[in-house]
């Protein structure tokens, strides 16, 4: 597998009083043909990282390579990288097909080839009927498709997408998520996708980089990140999580024996490069735990609230040491909750579903 984009200690400080460190030394390797997502809250530096890859911003320090060659001295128009802008940035004086043809014309492609490619692209994003419209005369979702077609038409090696779906309504958004994933698979182009929506990231990506306050906190496949968050921020930002304090009693390569506050002990996964002994925090996903009779539980607590969500039910408990704990049960015809509000119940989870956090 070849590396498409590789960043080392990439840092960006915007001048000003005080200067803003938007990216504090990022290390990143994005594989060719990968759907790679930058996920993080607003202001964490996602756009900055993307703009440096596109060439609109110059890094303060660090290196940035594309297929092994440095990008840093290339202006945006010499990088085989295209961007789908958050505001779409379609040319208002050009029609849909003229917008899509723009990049090809700038590359000096022959007229017949341009015509062919534009027709293909218009088809690919299902805009054939509106090809001759001005871009001001089409809806937001359609503008989104045109922006996508315009960026894909020159067949870039890497496509950058900065929160491209954030302006769309829920239903259209779900559609476009599938559409984007399909386009990525069909074209084989490396997608670098920016979002602050964890669900979007989990459903679409091959790998996700979770960012916070200018640094990359964890990189991994959606499942890895979800099941084995390395630190509190990641666990909290992606999905719902229960945090428990625990004491490591023994550890081997990637597992540890931990004592819970209830005195029971279980096995938990260790993060790479984290603490191997002493007092730690465990993360347990609500759907990984289940309710049992009080005496069979690893933990015990009182049911404070039961919320029905259709497909599943959320059960909020307070453990004996006062910590809140949420549990999620899928609803089907066979399961029925044996507990009522105010009851004391036990909580069990399988060995190794608990993840020791770095912090």
């Amino acid at each position: 597998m070849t590396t498409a984009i590789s960043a080392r200690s990439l840092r960006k400080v915007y001048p000003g009083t005080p200067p803003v460190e938007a990216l504090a030394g990022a290390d990143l390797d994005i594989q060719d043909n990968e759907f790679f997502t930058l996920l993080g809250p607003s202001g964490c530096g996602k756009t900055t990282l993307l703009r440096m890859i596109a060439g609109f911003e110059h890094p303060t320090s660090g290196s940035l390579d594309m297929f092994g060659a440095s990008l840093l001295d290339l202006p945006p128009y010499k990088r085989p990288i295209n961007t789908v802008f958050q505001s779409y940035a379609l040319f208002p004086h050009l029609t849909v097909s003229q917008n899509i043809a723009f990049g090809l014309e700038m590359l000096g492609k022959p007229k017949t080839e341009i015509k062919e490619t534009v027709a293909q692209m218009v088809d690919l994003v299902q805009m054939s009927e509106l090809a001759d419209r001005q871009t001001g005369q089409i809806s937001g979702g359609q503008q989104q498709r045109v922006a996508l077609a315009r960026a894909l038409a020159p067949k870039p090696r890497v496509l950058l997408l900065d929160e491209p779906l954030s302006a769309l309504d829920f239903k259209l958004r779900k559609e476009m998520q599938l559409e984007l994933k399909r386009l990525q698979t069909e074209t084989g182009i490396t997608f670098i996708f920016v979002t602050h929506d964890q669900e979007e990231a989990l459903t679409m990506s091959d790998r996700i980089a979770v960012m916070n306050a200018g640094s990359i906190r964890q990189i991994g496949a959606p499942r890895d990140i979800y099941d084995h968050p390395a630190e509190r921020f990641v666990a909290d930002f992606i999905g719902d999580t229960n945090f428990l304090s625990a004491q490591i009693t023994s550890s081997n390569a990637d597992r540890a024996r931990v004592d819970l506050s209830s005195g029971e002990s279980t096995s938990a996964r260790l993060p790479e490069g984290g603490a191997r002994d002493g007092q730690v925090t465990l993360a347990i996903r609500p759907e990984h735990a289940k309710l049992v009779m009080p005496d069979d539980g690893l933990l015990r607590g009182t049911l404070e609230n039961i919320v029905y969500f259709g497909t599943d039910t959320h059960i909020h408990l307070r453990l004996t040491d006062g910590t809140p704990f949420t549990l999620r049960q899928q609803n089907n015809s066979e399961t029925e909750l044996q507990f009522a509000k105010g009851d004391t119940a036990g909580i069990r989870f399988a060995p190794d579903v608990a993840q020791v956090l770095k912090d």
Partner: protein
Amino acid sequence: MTDLSLTAAKRASRRRWILLAPALILLVFAASGPLLITVIFSLLTPGDYGGVVWKFSTDGWFGVFAQRDIFDGTFGWSDAHLSIFWRSVKLSLITTVACLFFGVPTAYFIATRPKKQRGFWMLLIIIPFWTNLLIRTFAILELIRNEGTVNSLLIWAGVIDAPIQILYTEFSIILGMVYVYLPLMVLPVYASMERFDFSLVEAAYDLYATRFRVLRRVILPLVKPGIVAGSILVFVPSLGAYVTPRVMGGGNQLMLGNLIELQFGQGRNWPLGAALSMTLLAIVMVALIVYVRAAGNEEVQHG
């Protein structure tokens, strides 16, 4: 009921007329009135000491294009007038192009500054406007005359031995007019650029457009309204300019404005002056129609 609504309607209509009055007064006294007087004067006979005699004559219009040979009394084209028309159009066109050349990048520069700084840069553009036109023109004269700053500096630096004749040439007229009319180009172009969405520039860069092509394919088509307005604002007063050609041209490089002024002054031929004024108006109108048509029809070019 009916009566009430009728008087209400009447009152509303009266209020409308009162509100319209300033515009109507302006139109009658400042636009149509003088124009009408000019047309009438152009068809009368010149008085002996200026003014007009109320006797119909087409001599004024005749004199715009033709002249009587003083020796054999035949009529021929008025070469002097035609060459002045031609010079006026030529110098105004060059002035407009030069203002575009300097004004568009200037407006671009200002529009791309941070919001807080733009006011300062606009102030620098506008300040000369607050100074009297004559004073500004004489300031340039001081710079470029044979013993002026530019020539003195060049001689002092040893670049030239004798002063270059800059003043009293067509070049000096253009220089003066560009200086005087540049703000009229910068202002409308800046206004259209300020509204311009600069993420389009990034989008074009991203799609392999070089700087020059970004300018030609994205920026220019979108700021064209400002450029059209600026060109008109520069071209029209240039065509009728008279202070600048007078001072910078020194009397031997006449433009239309000077010719007209001459007829109302020393020439004591008001009808000819009025006819020349109407001719100027006609040239401006034709030029504007041609220009606006051309600018409007020009499709976005490919390639």
